[in-house]
C-alpha cells in the first residue's frame, strides 16, 4: 500500500469536485471515493488500486430509500446492502433484489457494502488481483491476459474478448439489471441518468474501462421502476458452498404470466458474464409463450447460445441453463 491523502466530503458536489481532479474514473484512478471500502481497501492493500487521494463519502446524506410519487423506488447510493435487502418495499415489491443481496458476501460485508459501491465492485479474477502477473489488460492496458491459459474455472463465458475474461462479481447489479434500474450520476452541478443496461461496458480491447463513469462522476441514487402489477421475481445463485462465495452461475428473473402466456420477462445472469448479463435472447424466447419447461429450456438455450467457455469452465454453460430453468420454474409455480 502506498501513501495516500484522505479527505472527507461534506456534500455530493464537493465529493465530485475532488474526484474531478482524477484523470480517469476507471482503473488507475488517482482519486477514489470510499464508501464501505469492501472492494477498494482490499485492492489498495494489494497495490492493484493506488489512488493518491481517497475521498470519504460516508457522511453524505444518500442513505435513504424512498418511494417516489410515480411508484418508483429511489435508493440512495450510501444505503448499505444489508439495509436494502431488508427494506420492506424491496422485500415486498422487488424480491429478486432482496434475495440477490442476501446471497452476496457475508453479513459483515453486507453491513458495510453500499448500493453505489456494489455497482462498482471489481472482479475477483486472481490474475487481476496479483501483481506478480505483469500481464493483465484490465490493470495494464495492452499487457496481455494471464487468465486465458491460466486457471479459469470461475471466469466468464459471455461477453468475453481475447483481451479479458474477468467475471463481474455482483449479485445486486444482476438483480437490478432484471429490474431495469436507472443510475443517477452527479458531476459538479449537473446530473444525468443512465439505464443500468447502458452503464457497464464490454471488455473488448479496453477491459480497463468498465463503465461509463467519467472523472468527477458520483453515483447518488439508483431508481427502480414501479413494480409491474402481477409480475413475480426471483434470484437463484449456484456455487460450491452455501455461503460467502461468488456465483458460478446465478439468474435474476422478473416475469409476468398472464393466464397461460408469459407477457413480460426480464432475465439477467450473474457469474457468467463480463458484466451483469441481461439476456434479451432469453426474454424473447419467453415472451408470448406458455410458462412450461419446454419454453424455459428454449430460453436457457437461447441465452447461452453464444457462450465461449475457457479450459476450466465449460460446465458453466450447462449450470447457467439449469439455474435459469430452476429460477423460472420456482417463480411460476
Amino acid at each position: 500500500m502506498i501513501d495516500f491523502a484522505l479527505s472527507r466530503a461534506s456534500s455530493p458536489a464537493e465529493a465530485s469536485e475532488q474526484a474531478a481532479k482524477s484523470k480517469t474514473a476507471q482503473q488507475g484512478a488517482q482519486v477514489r471515493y470510499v464508501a464501505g471500502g469492501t472492494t477498494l481497501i482490499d485492492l489498495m492493500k494489494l497495490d492493484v488500486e493506488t489512488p493518491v487521494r481517497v475521498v470519504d463519502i460516508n457522511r453524505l446524506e444518500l442513505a435513504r430509500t424512498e418511494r417516489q410519487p410515480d411508484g418508483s423506488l429511489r435508493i440512495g447510493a450510501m444505503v448499505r446492502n444489508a439495509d436494502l435487502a431488508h427494506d420492506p418495499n424491496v422485500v415486498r415489491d422487488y424480491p429478486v433484489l432482496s434475495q440477490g443481496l442476501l446471497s452476496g458476501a457475508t453479513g459483515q460485508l453486507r453491513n458495510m457494502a453500499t448500493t453505489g459501491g456494489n455497482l462498482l465492485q471489481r472482479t475477483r479474477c486472481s490474475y487481476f488481483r496479483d501483481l506478480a502477473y505483469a500481464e493483465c489488460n484490465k490493470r495494464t492496458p495492452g499487457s496481455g491476459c494471464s487468465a486465458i491459459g491460466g486457471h479459469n474455472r470461475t471466469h466468464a463465458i459471455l461477453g468475453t474478448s481475447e483481451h479479458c475474461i474477468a467475471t463481474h462479481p455482483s449479485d445486486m447489479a444482476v438483480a437490478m439489471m432484471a429490474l431495469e434500474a436507472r443510475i443517477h450520476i452527479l458531476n459538479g452541478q449537473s446530473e444525468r441518468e443512465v439505464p443500468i443496461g447502458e452503464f457497464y461496458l464490454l471488455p473488448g480491447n479496453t477491459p480497463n474501462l468498465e463503465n461509463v463513469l467519467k472523472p468527477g462522476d458520483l453515483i447518488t441514487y439508483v431508481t427502480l421502476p414501479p413494480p409491474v402489477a402481477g409480475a413475480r421475481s426471483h434470484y437463484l445463485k449456484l456455487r460450491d458452498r452455501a455461503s460467502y462465495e461468488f456465483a458460478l452461475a446465478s439468474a435474476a428473473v422478473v416475469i409476468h404470466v398472464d393466464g397461460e402466456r408469459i407477457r413480460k420477462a426480464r432475465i439477467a445472469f450473474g457469474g457468467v458474464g463480463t458484466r451483469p448479463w441481461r439476456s434479451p435472447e432469453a426474454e424473447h424466447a419467453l415472451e408470448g409463450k406458455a410458462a412450461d419447461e419446454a419454453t424455459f429450456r428454449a430460453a436457457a438455450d437461447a441465452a447461452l447460445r453464444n457462450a465461449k467457455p475457457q479450459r476450466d469452465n465449460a460446465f458453466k454453460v450447462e449450470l447457467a441453463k439449469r439455474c435459469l430453468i430452476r429460477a423460472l420454474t420456482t417463480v411460476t409455480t
Partner: protein
Amino acid sequence: MATTPASIIGRAVPRIDGPLKTSGTAKYSSDHNFPNMVYAVPVCSTIGKGRIRRLDSSAAEVMPGVVRVYRHGKVPPIYRPIPHDRTARIDESRPPFEDERIYYNGQYVALAVADSYEHAKAAAGAVKVEYDAETPNVSLDLSDGFNDSMQEESKRGDVDAAFASAPVKIDETYVTPVETHNPIELHASVATWDGSRFVLYETTQAVMNHQAVMAQMLGVPRENVQIVMKFLGSGFGGKLWPWPQAMLAAVAARDLNRPVKLVIDRSMMFTCAGHRPRTQQRIRLGATPDGKLVSLEHDYANHSSISTVGHFRENCGEATPFLYSTPNLRVRSNVVDRNVGTPTPMRGPGAVPGLFALESGIDELAIKLKMDPVQFRLMNEPKLDESKGMPFSSRHLKECLTQGAEKFGWSAYKPEIGSMRRGDITLGWGVASCSWIAGRGACKATLSLRDDGTARIACATQDIGTGTYTVFAQVVSEKTGLPLHKIDVVLGNSSLPPGPTSGGSMVTGTVIPAIIQAADAAIRQLLTVATTASDTPFQNRKPEELVLTEGRIQLKSDAASAVPFETILKRANIRTAEGEGNSGPNSTDPQLRNYSFHSFGAHFLEVEWDAGIARLRVSRVVTVIDVGRIVNLKAARNQVEGAIVMGVGMGMLERTIYDPRNGRPVNNNVADYLMATNADCPEIDVTFLDYPDKLLNEVGARGVGEIGLAGVAAAITNATYHATGVRVRELPIRLETLMEQEKGSTTRRA
C-alpha cells in the same frame, strides 16, 4: 485415578481461558510489542523455479523508515538444522536466503525491515528482482512415484498371489489435493535479543522443539533461546515446526539489536508455512464372494518440495495395516519432488488422506459384493492388530459401527442408487470408519501448592486452542480437591519443565501421568510439612495417616480434623509444597510395548442432491468415537464437531490450486480458498463410547483432536455415490464432475 460420579474428569467444563479470549485480553504471539521495535516484511519470488539474476534493493533502502533489506549474501548466518534430530524437527530445513536458487513460487528472496509495518511493506514492494526462470515441475500426476523405489511400510502374506486369485476385487486410484492450513492467526514471530539471549514469541505448537531448532539454526546454545507462546489462534499442524520467518525475525533482531516483529500475510500462508501435500493412492482389494477380505494393497505417493529444501512423507498407510482383518497385505509409499513449498502435517496427517482412499475402496468392494457396507466392515473386524500380532489396548470399532447405524437409522438404507428421497431431493447415505494413533510421549510437570491456598501447575507444553489449559486444571482439581479458579496453569514457555508437542493428539494422554505424579509428590511434601510443623493438629503424626481432601488436610480416621492446607503452610512458614512428575513414552514401556494403541470411530452421513441445479450438500452426520475416557466432554465434543466440519470442507470444497504455468497458488486467500462456512455445517450428532484405556494412563484417556476428521471425506463420497451413481475418487467433489458423470441427469428433473 479412581474417579467418582462427582469427579470433574469427564465433565463438560468450560475453558478456564475462555474469558481471556472472549474479552480480547489473551495475548497472542503477534500481540507482543516492545520499545524500539521494528517490522519486517518478506519479498516473495514470483517464479516457480530458476535463479535470482539481479536483486536491486537500492530504492527500497532509502524509502522512509527503512532500516535494512536482507537477502542472499546480505544476511547474518542461518545454519541448517541437524538432520533427523527428533528433538529438533523442521520440515523446510533450507535456511532462508541460503542460495540464489528459486525452488518454489512464493519463496522468500528478501526481507525489508522498517519502523512501521506500512513502511516495511512499501519497501518490500519496491525491491526489484530479476530472475532466470525455468519451467517448474508442478505436475498433478504423481505416477512418477509408482516405481521400484517405493518403500515397503507393512507386509504380510502374499498379496500378489492373493489378489490375482481373489474372486471379487477392485483396483482403483484415489487422489487428494493440496490443502492449506488456514488458521485465522497468521504465522508470526516477535524476536527480542538482549546481547546474549533470545526471547522469541512464536506461533508454535511446540515450544520445546522450536527452542531446539532455533538454537541450531541461530548457532547459539539452547539455553540462550527462550520460546514463548501463551495462546494460539489455531495451528492444525501448520505450526508444529518452525518456518523461515522465525529465523529471519531472530537474525534481524540480533543484527539490528532491536525487537523485530514479522507477521506473514495470508498469501504467504499458502507457500512458506506448509500444506497437506497432494496424494495419489492406489487401492487393490480382493475378497471372497461371501465378503471375507483376502487381500489389501495400498500404494501411494505424495508430493514434497525439492528435496534440498525439505522432505515430507505423508503417511497415508497409517491405519491401513490394522483396520481390517486380512491375511495378505502390503503398503508401499514414495515421495516425489515438485516445485512447491514444503508440506507439513495437517490434522490427522497420513490417516486422513489415507482413510479417504481405503474407506472409499472398502465401499466400492462392498457394493461389488452386493453387501451392506456396515455389515462388510463388521465381518472383517480383526481380533488383534494383525500387522504386529499384538492385542489392541482398547478397540471398540464394532460398537462404533453398530451404535452409529442405530442412531442414524441405517436400517432404512436402500442400496439402489438414487432410491431414497425427501421431496424433490435425492438422499445419499454413506458410512466410513476412522482411526488415529494413540500414544504417550515424554513429559515433566511441576505442581506447587502455595500458602495462599492456590496451586500452580507448570509444563512446557502449550494450549493450541483445544482446551489443554483446562485439562491440566481439571486433573489438578481432581487430585487436590481445589476448585478450578484456585489453580494457575502455566504453559507455553520453553523455560518450564519440558512438555510435549501439541501434535498427534498426544498431549492429553501424555501429560496426565506427569500431572498425577507431580500432584502426588506435592501432596506428600505437604503432608510431611503438616507432621513436622509446630502448632498443627498433625504434629508428630505420620504422613501416611493424613490425606488431602478438598484442599484440606485431615487425619484419614477423623474428618473433623480437617484444616485448610494453606493454614498448615503458613504456620510452617513455607511458601510452597512442590512435586515433580514424569511421563514416559508408551513405546519404551516394557509393560506396554506389546500392545497396539489406537483410537477408532465411525461416521454415518447423509447428503442431499438436487440434480436439477447440481447442488450437493451434506445434511446430517452421526459419529461415534472410541477415544478412551473423555476428560472434558465440552472440549472433546468441540474437537470432533470441528473436525467433522473440516471434513465437509475436505470432501466438498478445499483444494489449493496452483497455476499450471508457474506453480503460483491461484486461490491464496480465505475468500477464494473455500472452507466450510456455518451455512455448510450439517446437523452433527457425536457420541463418545467412553471406555477407559487404562493401559495408556491412569485416567484412561487417549487424544481426541484429529480422529474426527479421518473418514469424513470417504463417508461423503460414499453417500454421493449412493445419491448420484457418480464415484468421486479425486477430492474435492466438484459439481462439474457430478454434472458430467451423472447418467442421463442433464435432461432429467430440471
